[in-house]
């Protein structure tokens, strides 16, 4: 009996000796693998209270940019100033702003090219950014720097029905939901993040949508993969056709 116990103990020790280097190897590899997995995506869905998908919602990381992010933003902004490629623009086409909702990162300069034959006078009185620009086709007006996070509502002083929204976000980590309400935030650095959801017609305040998520740990990988937001939206208003002869200028 004692001999069988000794045999079992020896076998166990042999297994431990075999497994120990494997375990040590794992302990060395897993953090690296974890770090590699930390540059990963967080996906999820935005729906309404009735469960229907919300398209064109913006899910973003509500956190101040890290030094690396800030540097990257400044570098990208330089490219927008100095080069034609990568510039952010809100166009005026056929007496409408294109796009109607434009998400940008804080520190971005936005151009307002006018492709209409007629004059526009673009302005905003939002606290996030106040400005006004008389604009003509073919004229490159000075880009406008959006240096505070928040919503900037845009209008035209001449054509009252023209309106748009520029959503200035604190960092580059944002995504727009598709027609099925789905989004994926990619390349998030490892760590804890607070996600928020926004929609142009949302009655739900952004602060009420905040969700914490940890990126880069196996334990929380499952939660990171299926974030859900519920936004209550105001009814969509049809924009006026504004092509009546009486008012067409």
């Amino acid at each position, binding site marked *: 009996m004692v001999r069988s116990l000794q045999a079992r103990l020896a076998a166990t020790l042999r297994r431990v000796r075999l497994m120990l280097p494997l375990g040590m190897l794992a302990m060395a590899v897993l953090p690296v693998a974890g770090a590699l997995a930390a540059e990963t995506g967080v996906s999820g869905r935005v729906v309404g209270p009735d469960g229907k998908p919300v398209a064109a919602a913006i899910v973003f990381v509500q956190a101040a940019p890290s030094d690396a992010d800030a540097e990257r933003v400044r570098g990208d902004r330089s490219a927008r100033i100095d080069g034609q490629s990568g510039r952010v623009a809100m166009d005026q086409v056929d007496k409408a702003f294109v796009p109607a909702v434009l998400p940008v990162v804080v520190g971005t300069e936005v151009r307002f090219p006018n492709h209409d034959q007629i004059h526009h006078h673009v302005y905003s009185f939002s606290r996030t950014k106040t400005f006004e620009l008389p604009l003509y086709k073919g004229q490159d007006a000075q880009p406008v720097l959006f240096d505070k996070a928040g919503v900037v*509502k845009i209008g035209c002083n001449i054509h009252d029905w023209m309106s748009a929204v520029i959503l200035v976000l604190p960092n580059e980590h944002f995504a727009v939901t598709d027609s099925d309400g789905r989004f994926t935030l990619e390349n998030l650095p490892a760590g804890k993040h607070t996600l928020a959801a926004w929609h142009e017609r949302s009655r739900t305040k*952004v602060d009420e949508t905040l969700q914490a998520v940890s990126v880069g740990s196996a334990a929380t990988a499952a939660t990171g993969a299926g974030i859900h937001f519920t936004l209550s939206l105001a009814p969509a208003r049809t924009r*006026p*056709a504004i092509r009546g002869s009486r008012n067409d200028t």
Partner: protein
Amino acid sequence: MAREPQHRPARTVGYGFRAARVACFLVTLVAWLSPALLGGAPAFAQAPPSTGGSFDNVDDQQGEDPYEVNQPRRVWLRGVLDARVVRGGEAPSWTDSGRGRTRYGSDVDGEGFERETKLVLAQLAIELGATLPWEVRAQAQVNVQPDLDDYRPWLVEAFVRKEWGVATSGRGLQAGLMGNPFSLEHVGPAWSPQYSISASALNSWLWEEISVAGLEGEWWREAGGLRFGMLAGAGFGPDQLGRLVAVRGWTMGDVLSGVGAEMPLPSGVRTQIFDERDDRPAAYALLTLGDARERAALRFGYFDNFGDENVAGVWNTRFGVVGASFHLHPRFELLVQYLDGEARVRDTTNDSSLRAWYALLSHHQGRHRVSVRYDSFRLQDVDGGSVTAEDGEGVTFAWFWQIGLRHQLGFEYVWLDVDRRSQPTLAPSQDGGQLSYRFRY
């Protein structure tokens, strides 16, 4: 039942007293609007367009949440205040039952033809709108034009509108009180002229004498790079249409008529603009053909009030108007319009043929706009006399400076020459200038 024209004596209030009233009014208004003057978004930025429309507010009334988006309000209010320093022609203006053809002239109590410089409140316009269920939009505008009717408000428009479709294809239905759809110049805030302080003789008359309560339908479509539009309407009210231009002659100004409007005639009599007597609806139509990129557009309009001359005081007036607008260069606009018509009435010898045209060139640079316009107009007496016959032409120079979003300074000078056969040979100069400050709320 036919009604007799109302007889009211010409006003004799001195201009000094008027200036004091204007000053008191302005002080009160500035105090009332001071929150808007000092800051905050203009109300027009919160409002749907003049056509009626629902869209997001563009204002600064965010709460603490920087991401908050205010949802559109269902009711909106806008206003335009226009104060001026004017130095008009040598004769008292037609607004004082004088012979002057611009809106402001000399002192009505003066000894002769002496120019006068004065401070006036030209216009206070209040616009109110609302979005009703089923995306029906309601809109109304009231104007106060003290030189014409003290501070009695005139209802310029009040209608409901429903649209179907989108910008490239759709239709609309509008019912209520409306002005004319023909003017190419009255496209500024509260239907004010956009290119100059005074509109052309042609468009001045259209906005002075046409006010219709009825129904209007509209259709538009873009195809093959072109934009087509059709508008047709019918309504009641313009049974006096033609009386003002035939009896008084052509003028150049920015008066907007409506319900409650009474315009002075040279004899001191005042004529009601909105005055339905024969229970026959007027009808009008407008065709638009344009380039989808808005480089050029043509408009063909027709109006007939189908007035029953057998009813006392009813004028039977019809006209056609053709217009073209060109935006061949982003900073330049060229407008041309031509009107031809006739106005007849049974009881007097004022039957007239009407003809007027103008060409306007406007240049926009930054916040400044400079416009030059040439006007030509004519009345022919067609019932055997020369009571209404006249010929005239004018040149207008105008400059506007848009200061921010709310404030506009404007200057205009009009050179005007009118020869009316029935008037004495002594012809006072009609030339005059205006300096305007406009505040938009």
